[in-house]
């Protein structure tokens, strides 16, 4: 076998934390190699070592059969390693071409470099089907296109190994499929692709071989064709995991929450939600499906009172809310609505606050923070300890800042806070985004338990599988409009896909 990249006994510690322990890894030339592991398993650290952003404490890196010393990302690029980061590193006000040139402008004047870069860019985009307009501003591109620019940047130096760190986290299913097509072309051209992910389906769909990491160690290497999602999940988590959600039929009761001709026009005058009608009953989950950016965020935030609806009305647990009412999140919350926001970093948590402070965020006016004028830190501590125990938040340290928890545990803090308030209606946005397998299982179970306890739940997710496995009914949004609501028993990927593209329910069915 022709090995493109090999790691031998690579270790790396940050202070007392051993991020990587004696990692061995061999990546074959012209293959797609997946690295899978939960958040915090050490995947990103390992990739940063390969790319020269971190230096390993010990161990060797062999590239193309030769031992190399990668001291910086410039070294890595020289050795033919390219990396596409999870968070894009592009200058939004530059054009695609200018971004691609960045770092290799060549000479005093830009003219010569620009010509060469343009040629290279066109060549790459043609060879690998990376369609993008070189003269478009990056700020005008959508996420999928920006990622292509990143890939072109990574490939421009003639990379033989391409590292992609969680590339599909920000993509729609269609964009992800396009990305995978591109990766296949790259593989067939002899490039080795290292795909970092925590999504089992991606590993199974696209990779040739897969390495599994857990707690800083490599726990296994498999040929993708010879393994199963079940085995991978168990290796990742270290115990048996339930991948399928065990959902009993719902027993919906009274209507708890409804929207009538709901509309939302933003400050720029753009109609973002158009004539939405739905109702959610006690004891059922209404899923909201749609390609990301079709009004889901606006819907959630309007329902939660973070934006003001501009037409139509809502009925929340018997209280009528219209455009004339200046609602705010406080009022909606006090009506008995819980809200797991789509973006826990921006909305759900104050990352620089301790876990115990986050555990009372939004409830700090209640007795959770003490019954007197001043905060009762004993009560706050106790409240956090109890909820951490009940929702299995790890580490169970109420004094740790929220930013120091893993994604899954951060989400559990938000969930613990919102679920414990025992809401009559719950708005849930992207409950498992950036959350590891073990935590997903837990969160799904908790959601269903809450449903069975009689809560009316509205669930927004870009993961179609999640919507399909949890929801009792599914509403599909496209361009801010409600395309239709169907029973989840009648929903399959095909039907939903057509509806997400804007086809009305009758036509789709």
């Amino acid at each position, binding site marked *: 076998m022709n090995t493109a990249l090999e790691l031998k006994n690579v270790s790396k510690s940050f*202070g007392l934390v051993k991020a990587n322990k004696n990692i061995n890894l061999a990546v074959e030339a012209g293959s797609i190699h997946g690295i899978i592991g939960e958040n915090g398993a050490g995947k990103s650290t390992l990739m940063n070592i390969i790319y020269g952003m971190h230096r390993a404490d010990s161990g060797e890196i062999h590239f193309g059969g030769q031992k190399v010393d990668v001291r910086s990302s410039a070294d890595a690029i020289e050795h033919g390693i390219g990396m596409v980061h999870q968070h894009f590193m592009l200058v939004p006000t530059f054009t695609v071409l200018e971004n691609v040139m960045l770092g290799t402008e060549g000479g005093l004047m830009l003219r010569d470099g620009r010509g060469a870069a343009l040629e290279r860019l066109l060549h790459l985009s043609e060879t690998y089907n990376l369609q993008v307009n070189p003269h478009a501003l990056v700020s005008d591109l959508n996420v999928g296109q920006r990622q292509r620019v990143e890939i072109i940047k990574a490939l421009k130096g003639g990379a033989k190994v391409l590292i992609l760190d969680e590339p599909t986290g920000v993509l729609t299913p269609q964009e992800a499929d396009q990305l995978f097509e591109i990766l296949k072309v790259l593989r067939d051209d002899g490039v080795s692709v290292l795909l970092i992910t925590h999504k089992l389906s991606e590993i199974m769909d696209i990779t040739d071989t897969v390495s599994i990491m857990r707690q800083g160690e490599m726990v296994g290497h498999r040929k993708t064709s010879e393994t199963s999602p079940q085995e991978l999940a168990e290796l990742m988590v270290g115990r048996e995991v339930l991948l399928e959600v065990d959902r009993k039929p719902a027993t919906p009761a009274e209507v708890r929450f409804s929207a009538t001709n709901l509309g939302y026009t933003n400050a720029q005058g753009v109609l973002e939600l158009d004539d939405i009608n739905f109702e959610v009953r006690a004891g059922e989950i209404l899923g909201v499906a749609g390609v990301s950016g079709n009004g889901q965020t606006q819907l959630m935030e309007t329902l939660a009172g973070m934006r003001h609806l501009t037409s139509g009305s809502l009925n929340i647990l018997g209280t009528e809310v219209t455009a004339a009412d200046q609602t705010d999140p406080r*009022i909606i919350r*006090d009506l008995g609505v819980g809200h797991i926001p789509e973006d826990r970093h*921006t*909305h759900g948590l*104050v*990352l620089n606050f301790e876990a115990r402070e986050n555990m009372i*965020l939004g409830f700090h006016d209640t007795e959770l*923070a003490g019954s007197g004028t001043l905060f009762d830190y004993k009560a706050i501590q106790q409240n956090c300890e109890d909820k951490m125990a009940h929702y299995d938040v790890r580490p169970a340290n109420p004094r740790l800042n929220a930013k120091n928890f893993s994604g899954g545990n951060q989400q559990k803090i938000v969930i613990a806070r919102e679920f414990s308030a025992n809401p009559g209606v719950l708005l849930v946005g992207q409950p498992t985004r950036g959350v590891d397998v073990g935590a997903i299982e837990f969160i799904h179970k908790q959601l269903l338990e809450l449903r069975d306890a009689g809560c009316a739940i509205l669930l927004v997710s870009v993961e179609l599988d999640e919507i399909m496995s949890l929801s009792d009914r599914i509403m599909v949004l496209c361009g801010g409009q409600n395309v239709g609501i169907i029973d989840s028993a009648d929903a399959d990927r095909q039907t939903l896909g057509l509806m997400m593209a804007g086809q009305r329910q009758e036509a789709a069915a």
Partner: protein
Amino acid sequence: MSTPTPPLPRWADLILLPIINLFAAFFICGLIVLAIGENPIEAMGVMIKGAFVYSGGLGYTLFYTTNYIFTGLAVALAFHCMMFNIGGEGQALIGGLGAALASFGIGLYLPAPLAIPLAVLGAFIAGGIWGVIPGYLQAKRGSHIVITTIMFNFLAASLMVYLLAGPMLEAGQQSPQTAKLAESTLLPKMADILSPLGFDIASTPLNASFLIALGAMAVFYVLVWHTRLGFNIRSVGQNQEAAHYAGINVARTIIITMAISGGFAGLLATNEILGFNHKVVLNFTAGYGFTGIAVALMGRNHPIGIFLAALLFGALTQGGGELDFEFQSITREMVLLIQGMIILFSGALAYMFNPPLARMIAKFVAPKDPANG
């Protein structure tokens, strides 16, 4: 990109790093003193003696410290809400106006135990009003707080010149200042407070306002970390979006924060006006409002840190005066230079020594690792 530095232990971050920064600042200043032909060690000795040792030195130092505590707290509170309050100077000036109006208005009719709190309240409220207007403009109109507070400094200065040279000018007086404030609203000197208790200290401008400053520190601590309002303030400061999500009224929190912040700055008048000048004079704030930014920065927006930073700046102000007095070639500007250096090293370059220090500490701590892990 190089290897990221290991995090600095908390104790080193809070104690060692500021001390190193301070020494770096003094070292550079020492070189400058050397360059103008004086002995830096000797100069340092004069400064320390002037600030702490000579009779009355400490009293003066604490008098200046009081001013820095008030303006430091003002800036720090706004910082907790991520508001950059540059307007301490103007708020303190208007605080003086408030104190004077309260004094002239009620001081003649009430005994000291009632009149003093009301005069102090006058300073707080007036400063608060001067803070709340930019706060409102920021919260409701989106006018940037940095710009508006700076403009409000000029407005306050102009207003005071107009009032002191016109409507409030003492009859028959040439220089722009008010008449003496009502006796019942004046704060007693610390020397007078302490002597009946058996402590004999030199009579200095140090007055009961120092106690108000200590009280303000306690109020600040409880407010920020132990009340719901403080939680709102810190939430808005750390993550406005999350605060909004949590149902906190962001605009209202900003307005209230700026009101209290301005109030703290206004309290400076209790020291300078009610405690020392006993009348409102022009420019009594003398830059304390601006230095308060450095005090808050150095003090890490915590009352204890602010006290220590204020003490340092107080000592520099007092010791610097001695320096000017003792040495021919060293002038008051040297003190400004030292202050500037300290601000440079502990503000702008605060983390310059962080990476090397962190690596050094990591080296000493690291050998134990294998045993633990």
